[in-house]
């Protein structure tokens, strides 16, 4: 893996956004060849989405030939509920950029047959040619998407019941009323994300530090599902100083020492303005 450590949340968000931007532009997406992006929700990627929006508004990045697949969505929450992941993606990302509605894919938590919906989502990913870059976060319990502790490391898109930890963590979005938090979600599986050609995990904040430690310094373990990416050929973890608080000094020093290499991935930052064909 690559572990990229930035000083604070804003710098980490910006580095991640630049990375995504460069990836898309280098790919030179077109009508016949879309760039497929897996996307997360939650508070961690907000800074990254803001930066990507800024790049779009400056004319440096276009999402016209990008297809997106979100990781998850609550079951039973109305699609226009302010806390649904559809609302999140619209308000924080889609409404600010030039992505076409039919190129966005978010699981439908109100589908009549949830199993069929999950299977269909896997098919849509396959039909799009697989995911080029899957961006994700990590829960305080080490989960990727809603693959709670105990999830199979080869799982596919399916219905999951949320762990108590996750419900408590989400309560702040539902007025701190535990009874209002959805208890089930549709989520991509660990295996689904592992199939992506590249995976980027964003981890910021001291409350994620223990999960990061478990994910990269301990073994592959279905209790900390992000650890599965130790077996992915191309994973990049982007974090801030606070998220490294539970890591060994040796690990942190090693990867900080590699920053000059990592930075070559984002500098120079490319722009679509330079590719006018």
């Amino acid at each position, binding site marked *: 893996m690559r572990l990229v450590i930035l000083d604070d949340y804003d710098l980490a968000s910006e580095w991640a956004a630049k990375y995504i931007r460069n990836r898309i532009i280098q790919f030179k997406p077109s009508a016949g060849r879309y760039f497929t992006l897996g996307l997360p929700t939650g508070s961690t990627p907000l800074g990254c989405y803001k930066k990507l929006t800024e790049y779009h508004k400056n004319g440096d990045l276009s999402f016209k030939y990008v297809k997106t697949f979100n990781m998850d969505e609550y079951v039973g929450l109305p699609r*226009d509920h302010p806390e649904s992941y*559809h609302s999140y993606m*619209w*308000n924080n990302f889609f*409404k600010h950029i030039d992505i*076409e*509605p039919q190129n*966005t894919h978010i699981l439908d938590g109100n589908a009549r047959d949830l199993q069929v919906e999950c299977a269909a989502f896997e098919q849509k990913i396959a039909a799009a040619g697989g995911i080029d870059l899957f961006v994700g976060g990590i829960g305080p319990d080490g989960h990727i998407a809603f693959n709670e502790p105990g999830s199979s490391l080869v799982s596919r898109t399916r219905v999951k019941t949320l762990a108590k930890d996750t419900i408590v963590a989400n309560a702040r979005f539902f007025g701190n009323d535990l009874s209002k938090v959805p208890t089930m979600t549709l989520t991509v599986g660990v295996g689904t994300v592992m199939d992506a050609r590249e995976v980027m995990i964003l981890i910021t904040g001291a409350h994620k530090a223990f999960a990061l430690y478990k994910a990269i310094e301990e073994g592959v373990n279905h209790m900390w599902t992000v650890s599965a990416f130790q077996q992915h050929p191309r994973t990049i973890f982007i974090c801030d100083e606070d998220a490294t608080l539970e890591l060994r000094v040796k690990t942190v020093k090693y990867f900080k020492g590699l920053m000059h290499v990592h930075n070559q991935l984002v500098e120079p930052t490319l722009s679509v303005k330079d590719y006018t064909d």
Partner: protein
Amino acid sequence: MPSNKSLSDAPITQFVNCRILKDHRLQREDLWVREGKILNPEKLFFDEEGFADHKIDCGNKIIAPGFIDVQLNGGYGIDFSQASDDIIGGVALVAKKILEHGVTSFCPTLVTSPTVIYHKVIPEIRVQDGGPEGAGVLGLHLEGPFISKEKKGAHPAQFLRTFNAGVVADLMETYGHLENVAMVTLAPELANSGAAIRELAGRGITVSVGHSMADLSQAEEAVQNGASFITHLFNAMLPFHHRDPGIVGLLTSDRIPPGQTVYYGMIADGIHTHPAALRIAHRAHPAGLVLVTDAVTAMGLPPGRHTLGQQQIDIQGLHAYVAGTTTLSGSIATMDMCVRHFREASGCTVEAALEAASLHPAQLLGMSHRKGTLEYGTDADFVVLDDTLTVRETYIAGQQVWRK
């Protein structure tokens, strides 16, 4: 772009680079319009996989709901209280001109008039939607004749009336019929007014107290019977007194039935009300303030002598007087001037000033589910303003009907 999977073929317009008045705040959001209504872009994106056909760059201007004037007596030489040969044409002329002031809907107002005028004029002025031809008519505002002799202001004394025991008969005999009537102003101290208020309110007509000598308890009783508005607060009523606040006391009365709001009209032209009085009213009850012009025939015309109702008036600068007296005879201010003056005089926020001319009158008339807001699904009547609150463009049903 591939074809738009919209539910409708109607073109979708997206207004970008603007600040819109939504949820009582100016927000940096785009405004989406389709088929004359404000469209929900998130629903469009996910449900219909739709997108905009046209984008209009607003140059970072403000978009507010179109202004609603519930007290407009005429203008540009037209007097709604005159039984002219072409009543419909007269209303249409004013309706078209007021688009320049950002008014997208209004209530043509008739002052105290003889029965024959009511019988002639009322049937001709219908509720109708606005459009490129002019602002929409929400219904008539009948200011009188059941008002107080002592507080008639510019209204002609000889046509004032009182209620007899048969209140409904009185109303019908006076007005002819009440179709297309949105509001009636009356003096609640008149005998049997309670029954009249209940009758009118029961028909969905907004009842306003004004041109009255009522004390606070009479005014409160009127509200309990269904009155919900005060016609031009401070003008043509007893002044506020600390032991009997009069009608002005309704602003802070504790006898208003729960769930009911008393709205009050303010002519914020800098002439009809001293700015300090405007501020007192605004601070006492900001949610109820409704800006009205009470503009008269001479609005829009040059200085000189003109006709209002059955009387003559003199225009001098920004003032309009009953000819030969110092009694004010309505104003010649325009709605956008009132919005600007209100903001300056009260120091209120831009949002509050805009809502006093749009949301509050819509709430007063029970129309806020359709007008006076930029909520999804409401009528796309709005104005584009610059930061000095000067109207630059007016839209009705999503169509540009005037530009500066």
